[in-house]
């Protein structure tokens, strides 16, 4: 089936040639006046340039955050603090369309997703935590919650504004101030968010946004006057961060990689399950830490499920992120594109059978066809390692026990799915899968009230919900 083009207009979304750092309520040039380029992965053309924050800039940002923490922010009544956060939620909603377009241009994700998932959820996250600001005594029975101080936050490129909201909203609600570093390939919406902080009249220095790559991030992590680190990204970098915090009193939360098991039982509603498998792995080009990248199908329905998956994959539209028909947008960066291709090669070399949809993909830009691997072994690298792309491995199982054992056979433990018509089986499976989140008959659902975070090497601590407050407070 062919669809006419349905491009979202980018006219109303202004992109400047150059963005500065946001420190102490102002946009300021970086001390070393170095800028780096950000590429639209769907066109491979430069979209804009961002400032590179170095030691002096990080110092400045932390000082601004400290000053704001000791000054207006901690002296303010909690309910007033909450009102600022409510304002931020509203401002995101008001400019949602602009944010959605920018998110798709900067990061390559389909406009339908940034419009319907990323931006509304970001606003909802601020709205949810705003209400907590003056109710913290109800969150921690028997204890009094005190803010930690300055939170250094480092976020990834897969859900730029949404991850920003996961970090900033609970930090502000609990009375902390923030120095946030967005990912170097997707810093645009964070700097747009800085404009919202100005528009909201948020006291200077409560939120500081500094841009740069890993080097800038490590300056934040190692800064003496930062009280807490919140990081979302790979397990590899998470371990480096945990190590560099060794012996210090800094608190930290890590939200890291995953290799999510998606377990389909014979009694599952098959068509729904197939939709769910597709969504679990191809949502956001598979750039999802909780992606359902390991499919486990009960033996009796394996052939049927694989066939249906192939049929469904054929209908997926890969292409222009700004087209409203697009299902799978651009791979976020050249580097990630190469990494995924390397894993496809590894998979084939390991003897797995690769299937890709036959769809057209644009000649320019980083695009990857939806891919699945069958005939894989538990020990294959494509089964064990996080690919962070639209690549699914398929294995079978006979009994629930075998499914559980295979699902848990990984150092990761972030999220997973179970598909069955039987409610009791859902509860049993959920209690046996060593993951922070279990979706039953659905996948990749997020909500500000719902705690998210990993077991084992998928991270430490929770974000979202009541549990997401805990990493930002001292309990007395």
């Amino acid at each position: 089936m062919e669809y006419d083009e349905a491009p979202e207009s980018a006219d109303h979304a202004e992109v400047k040639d150059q963005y500065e750092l946001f420190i102490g309520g102002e946009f300021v040039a970086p001390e070393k006046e170095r800028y780096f380029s950000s590429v639209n992965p769907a066109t491979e053309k430069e979209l804009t340039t961002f400032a590179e924050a170095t030691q002096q800039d990080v110092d400045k940002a932390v000082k601004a955050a400290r000053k704001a923490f000791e000054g207006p922010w901690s002296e303010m009544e909690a309910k007033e603090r909450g009102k600022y956060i409510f304002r931020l939620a509203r401002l995101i909603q008001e400019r949602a369309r602009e944010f959605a377009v920018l998110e798709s241009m900067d990061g390559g994700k389909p406009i339908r997703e940034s419009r319907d998932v990323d931006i509304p959820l970001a606003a909802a996250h601020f709205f949810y935590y705003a209400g907590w600001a003056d109710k913290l005594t109800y969150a921690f029975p028997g204890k009094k919650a005190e803010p930690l101080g300055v939170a250094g936050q480092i976020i990834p490129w897969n859900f730029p504004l949404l991850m920003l909201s996961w970090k900033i909203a609970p930090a502000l609600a609990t009375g902390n101030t923030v120095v946030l570093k967005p990912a170097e390939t997707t810093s645009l919406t964070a700097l747009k968010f800085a404009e919202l902080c100005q528009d909201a009249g948020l006291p200077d220095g409560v939120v500081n946004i500094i841009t740069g790559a890993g080097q800038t991030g490590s300056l934040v992590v190692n800064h003496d006057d930062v009280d807490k680190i919140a990081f979302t990204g790979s397990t590899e970098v998470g371990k480096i961060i945990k190590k560099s915090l060794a012996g210090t009193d800094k608190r930290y939360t890590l939200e890291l990689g995953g290799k999510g098991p998606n377990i389909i039982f014979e009694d599952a509603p098959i068509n729904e399950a197939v939709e769910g498998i597709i969504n679990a792995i191809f949502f956001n080009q598979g750039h999802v830490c909780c992606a359902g990248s390991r499919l486990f199908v009960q033996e009796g329905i394996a052939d049927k499920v694989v066939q249906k998956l192939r049929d469904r994959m054929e209908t997926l539209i890969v292409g222009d992120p700004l087209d409203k028909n697009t299902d799978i947008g651009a791979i976020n960066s050249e580097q990630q594109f190469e990494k995924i291709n390397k894993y496809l090669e590894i998979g084939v070399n390991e003897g797995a059978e690769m299937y890709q949809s036959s769809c057209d993909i644009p000649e320019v830009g980083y695009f990857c066809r939806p891919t699945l691997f069958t005939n894989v072994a538990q020990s294959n690298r494509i089964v064990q390692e996080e690919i962070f792309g639209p690549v699914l491995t398929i294995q079978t199982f006979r009994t629930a026990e075998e499914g559980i054992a295979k699902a848990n056979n990984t150092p990761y433990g972030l999220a997973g799915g179970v598909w069955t018509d039987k409610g009791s089986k859902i509860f049993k499976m959920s209690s046996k899968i060593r993951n922070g989140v279990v979706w039953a008959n659905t996948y990749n659902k997020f909500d500000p009230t719902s705690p998210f975070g990993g077991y084992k090497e998928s991270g430490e601590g929770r974000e979202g919900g009541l549990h997401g407050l805990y990493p930002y407070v001292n309990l007395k």
Partner: protein
Amino acid sequence: MSDRIEVLKTYKTYIGGNFPRTESGRYYKVYDGDENILANACRCTRKDLRNAVVEARNAVDGWSSRSAYNRGQILYRIAEMLETRKAQFTEELETIGTKKKQARIEVEAAIDRLIYYAGWSDKYQQVFGSINPVASSHFNFSMPEPMGVVNIWPPGESPLLGLISVIAPVITGGNTCVVLASEKYPLSAISFAEVLNSSDVPGGVVNILTGYRSELLEHMTTHKDVNAFFYTDPETDQETRKQIDENGTLNLKRIIRKPVENWLDEEAQSPYYITDFQETKTTWHPVGL
């Protein structure tokens, strides 16, 4: 004075519900308050530790699947057993120099601490779990679940009350543990193992080793099949703290440090000691006809 020769106890380790000696055959001397020798304690090795972790790992499934009520009763049973041996434990503390009155206070506080956590076993889930009002059509709830195997350095200076204060919240929450007893005062820990052994606590849930901390620290903190490391001594030096944290990065072991000064303090017990060793699991259950 009677001519009867006293029968002295051989202090061994407690692994998987049994009392083996260290595989190495090594020992170290334990003295009383007056520098008289009390016992030859096992100087455990990496291999003993690894054996204990295997037992602890094997016990996780069964212990964490017990009903909360059952775990509570078993905690209570430990307290009952300890109460009947109050005299023995008081005497043991006295031999290492604790004043009689203080020894009694500590033993009684240790018993009460077990009762305290026994009572929490079926309540912390209610207090710290949540039902989350998500916007989609799902019944969404979050529950605390045990992390798994916890390696513990109990307080060096509080050989019974401190020991019980760190073990109780860990096992109340469905975890199993491997404990390296106080290096200087290990005997109460081994005697406590005898209490555990007669208290319906399944073998492997609590494993107790004795030996040198400096020898076992690295193995306790780097073992990759261990989910968390728990220690409390406020005087732990900076270098050791750093080493523990760094070793924990290998498999993202949760490093929980609670520098408690006085284990008789109210602050030394709280349900937050239980939740420190819990992961939060969130389940999205479909709602519909």
